[in-house]
């Protein structure tokens, strides 16, 4: 079976940062593979190692800079990668769920995978919605927030555990093909080996444009407009304990003792 993994590069923000209009100033930004997608990639690579998957393909909606992250996925064992982007994507101030869904659905239509893995959420935008939206778009089954997966390709089903709130798991069977949104902790993501990193350089990383997938600019623009960005109004009433580490620790110790912490008897 063929497995497609949606991999996104997330923007990370420094401890101290400044907002400039509708964005955080570039100086304070970094990039990383989305934490949830690391688990999705690992799950797919393990399916390949177990002989269940014949091919693992990654799909990313992102600019050329995202290729570093994509190479990481290849270094960890994905076979090839597809990256979707054009100037319209770059111009959109917010790629909403609808836009990402349409673009990823375009890749699904081309690749026809038997299983699509996404993360539960992207660590930056955190819509928590792209996977399930994608399933509805391509007309297949799905399961959200999966922390255990057993595939039965002969029966054409997947048995999953869905992690609900409060330490309750739901045991569910879905028909294949399906999109599963993968939760952290489902496996232990590997580090890329040196050999993996080297071989990733020669793996196919194809760039396609939305136009080539038949996606209109209006779809990419979507209906959501980012009109404001601010640091949350901190109603924080925290007493900040200042000074050197020793000084602040001493102040905290006094606060704790007042509350009976660490006091004998």
């Amino acid at each position, binding site marked *: 079976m063929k497995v497609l993994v949606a991999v996104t590069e997330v923007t990370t*923000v420094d401890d*101290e*940062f400044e*907002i400039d209009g509708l964005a955080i100033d570039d100086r304070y930004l970094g990039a990383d593979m989305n934490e949830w997608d690391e688990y999705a990639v690992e799950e797919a690579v393990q399916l390949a190692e177990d002989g269940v998957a014949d091919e693992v393909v990654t799909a990313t909606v992102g600019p050329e800079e995202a290729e570093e992250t994509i190479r990481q996925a290849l270094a960890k064992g994905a076979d090839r990668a597809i990256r979707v982007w054009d100037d319209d994507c770059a111009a959109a101030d917010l790629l909403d*769920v*609808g836009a990402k869904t349409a673009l990823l659905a375009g890749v699904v239509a081309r690749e026809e995978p038997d299983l699509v893995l996404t993360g539960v959420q992207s*660590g930056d935008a*955190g*819509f*928590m*919605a*792209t996977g*399930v*939206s994608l*399933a*509805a*778009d391509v007309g297949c*089954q*799905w399961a*959200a*927030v999966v922390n255990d997966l057993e595939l039965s390709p002969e029966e054409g089903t997947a048995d999953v555990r*869905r*992690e*609900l*709130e*409060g*330490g*309750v*798991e*739901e*045991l*569910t*069977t*879905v*028909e294949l093909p399906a999109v599963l949104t993968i939760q*952290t*902790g489902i496996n*232990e993501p590997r580090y890329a080996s040196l050999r993996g990193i080297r071989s990733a350089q020669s793996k196919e990383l194809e760039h396609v444009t939305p136009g080539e997938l038949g996606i209109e600019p209006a779809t990419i623009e979507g*209906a*959501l*407009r*980012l009109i*404001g*960005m601010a*640091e*949350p109004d901190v*109603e*924080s009433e*925290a007493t*900040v304990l200042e000074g050197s580490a020793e000084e*602040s*620790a*001493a102040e*905290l*110790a006094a606060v*704790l003792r007042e*509350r*009976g*912490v*660490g006091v004998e008897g």
Partner: protein
Amino acid sequence: MSAPSPDVLAIAEHRRGDLRDVSDQLVTAGSELAGATGGDLHVAVVSGDVEAFGRKANREGVDVVHTVADGEEFNHDVYVQAVEALVEEVDPRYLLAPNSVNGLDYVPAVARRLALPLVTDVVDIEAEPLVATREMYGGKVETEIEVADDRAVLTIRAGEWPATTDTGDASVEPFELEIDESRVGSSVNGFEEVGGGDVDITEADVLVSVGRGIDDEENLELIHDLADALGATVSASRPIVDAGWLEKGRQVGQSGKVVTPDVYIAVGISGAVQHVAGMKGSETIVAINTDPSAPIMDIADYAIHDDLFEVVPALIEEFE
């Protein structure tokens, strides 16, 4: 598409026989929104004991309760069909649902199938024009999103709106639905409680809770030493448990335990919403974190903006 009605349709949530608290918060958000659009608030309960759920969902501000009797527990295929049919019936301007694990298992599918714009995990709403506030970058910033459409689907974050608990006088209307079985491709086989272990962190008076700031499994020693010095119990945020450094029973948060100790000391924890859901009821919250903009600072009573590897050893010394 012609203009929708000014009405708001909110889909309540239940699990294993109980209407979940967030449903009462949904009513508050829904009636505020319906107040702004000048429409009615419709609430729907789908599957399970809909009569009982329907009585309970009949809160002040609700105009109509729709009960859809098909199915027992939540099944996303049944929900998708039911909510699509309800949208057709009510033709609402706004569709509201909780931003819960189950909400996120059907709402994005409904939005996509009906080609409606979707804004998830909303913490504040202004209507006409619709502007939804939501966080980004793990709660470090808040964004305002305007929806350039006369319809929208919104999922709301739990705990952001107060619950409406007064009984209302809505009409309760059974909604007849023919489920298309050929479109049901998933089945729920059961539930399992997880996260046992040898300690019960919910019983502890003092918790020293460790997060990803600890960086390495070996460094956990420091946290155990601090807990010993304070006579406290060790708990953790999710990444520590995901990495297998501590057992699942020690995880605090949405998918772990809800704790309310006298003192909760968060060490190297950013305070993601799913973590805070499990500890915000603590009497006194202490945060030790190098990042002054970490969301944990918003709920902390005492904060140290410094390196845990400096502060924790000094604190241990204070108690030895």
